[in-house]
């Protein structure tokens, strides 16, 4: 009789920064199915948003995610500005550039964070330490411009809350200049390393058709050859005024996903530099007063992919419906494809985009392969263990 074993990863574990539960169904070393259980951090933000004033909502949605904490407010203000007649018609020119700079700085720090975590998950802790060390200057720049390392509070309907001072531009440019050799180093350390290639090539593959069927977005989709990027396709901020490239790879494995993210950092640096050079002086806020009845959609390319907000107004000072779709809502579901068929040891890095830990095997259930009936549970194992101890005791005698 062959057995199928369930290995639960989560929901709470010291190595996970967010609680979620992955049940890996494994036969021997091979993952044959996966069950994803969510909801441990469901805070009802869509409902909460209905009770907030239009200008309070950015602060609320900023707290959806600590890593892409300016993508959600940006998508929200774009949605409200869509009701008002479109971002380009409402927001002053300088604010468009500031939004773009903040979004790209966020992508830099988010990709560096992911790179560190991914390296950690395959046991390459040097890259982990490096990448988090070099992420710090980016956060310092955030603090310099907005006053905060996270949750910048800068997006506002009709513009931005804080200006970038002329004296800060020099510091920002210097930080970017120092970051280029760092990204060069990561490109070398990751892309030319035979061990990393052996661990990541051909692992966790999503092909293009699967990406389309599961509606996957962001770097995960671009690594599988799907050429989508909201910054180019439905431009907001100042993305349509500068030159940059969308990075697309064809392989669909984790190596390709890493490559896309590393190469995107060069693009982000280039975008910020161009914005700093082209940014005109002038007002940063249109001082919007009332939101008319109507509905609007805003979307931005967050570091993890398309972030989508839908807002409906009935003319009062609160949204009557605010729908939020973060990119991970689509991407996490696709783990069902990328993790199944691989081995347990690859599952950790395959799921790494959402940061789990597979070592959390303190609970174990053994199922019959065909009937899914429980063969053994934790108590049964304890009984077996106790029986064995008793037997050992007896065998050793009264010595």
């Amino acid at each position, binding site marked *: 009789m062959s057995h199928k074993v369930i290995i639960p990863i989560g929901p709470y574990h010291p190595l996970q920064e967010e609680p979620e539960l992955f049940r890996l169904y494994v036969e021997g070393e091979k993952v044959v199915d996966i069950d994803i259980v969510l909801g441990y951090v469901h805070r*009802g933000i869509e*409902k909460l948003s209905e009770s907030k004033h239009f200008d309070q909502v950015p602060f609320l949605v900023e707290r959806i995610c600590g890593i892409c904490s300016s993508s959600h407010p940006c998508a929200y203000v774009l949605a409200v500005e869509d009701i008002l007649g479109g971002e380009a018609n409402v927001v002053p020119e300088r604010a468009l550039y500031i939004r773009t700079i903040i979004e790209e700085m966020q992508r830099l720090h988010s990709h560096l964070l992911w790179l560190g975590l991914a390296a950690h998950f395959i046991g390459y802790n040097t890259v982990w330490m490096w990448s988090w060390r070099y992420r710090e200057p980016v956060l310092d720049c955030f603090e310099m411009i907005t006053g905060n390392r996270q949750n910048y509070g800068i997006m506002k309907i009709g513009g931005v809350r804080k200006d970038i001072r002329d004296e800060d531009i020099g510091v920002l440019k210097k930080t970017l200049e120092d970051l280029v050799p760092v990204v060069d180093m990561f490109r070398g350390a990751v892309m030319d390393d035979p061990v990393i290639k052996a661990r990541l090539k051909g692992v966790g593959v999503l092909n293009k058709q699967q990406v*389309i*069927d599961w509606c996957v977005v962001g770097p995960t989709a671009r690594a599988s050859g799907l050429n989508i990027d909201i910054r180019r396709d439905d431009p907001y901020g100042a993305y349509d005024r500068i030159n940059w490239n969308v990075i697309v790879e064809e392989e669909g494995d984790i190596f390709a996903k890493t490559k896309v993210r590393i190469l995107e950092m060069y693009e982000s640096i280039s975008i910020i530099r161009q914005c700093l050079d082209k940014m005109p002086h002038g007002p940063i806020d249109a001082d919007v007063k009332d939101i008319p009845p109507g509905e609007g959609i805003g979307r931005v390319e967050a570091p993890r992919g398309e972030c989508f907000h839908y807002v*409906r107004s009935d003319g009062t000072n609160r949204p009557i419906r605010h729908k939020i779709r973060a990119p991970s809502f689509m991407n996490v579901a696709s783990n069902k494809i990328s993790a199944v068929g691989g081995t347990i040891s690859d599952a950790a890095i395959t799921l790494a985009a959402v940061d789990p830990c597979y070592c959390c095997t303190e609970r174990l259930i053994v199922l019959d392969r065909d009937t899914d009936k429980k063969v053994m549970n934790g108590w049964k194992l304890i009984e077996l263990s106790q029986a064995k101890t008793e037997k050992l005791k007896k065998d050793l005698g009264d010595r």
Partner: protein
Amino acid sequence: MAVLDKIRERLADKIINWHEHSEKRIYILIKPQDIRKVATLLFKDLGLRFIIATGQDTPQGIEILYHFSIDKTGQIISVRVLIEDKKKPEIESLAPLFPGAEWIEREMWEMLGIKFIGHPNLKRLLLAEEWPEGKYPLRQEHES
């Protein structure tokens, strides 16, 4: 022929209302029973990307907006359906068509109580197990 014209032509008998909020934001009203056919045309035949669906409780009934993206032009087609029966709202599931719709339908089911007919795995996604049956957090109390 532009994708928009194709949609207009091939869905001529299904579209009740066509509203262009702006060049890039198009809202189409259709009957709930046509959703499967319309989604098949948009997703499978014309290759639009499904972004997400928004469920909403309105005084007229339960409304669902299915947002599809034409990535080449940056346009969003939002297909609107209105399910008038608020006591027992039902609509055909899109999950058998493409698995990307599975999670959002589970979410709308638990948040608004919409039953998705033909969904392969209609169970709770986000709400806690202890949450009472038949209570839907996103339902509104409208004055009648």
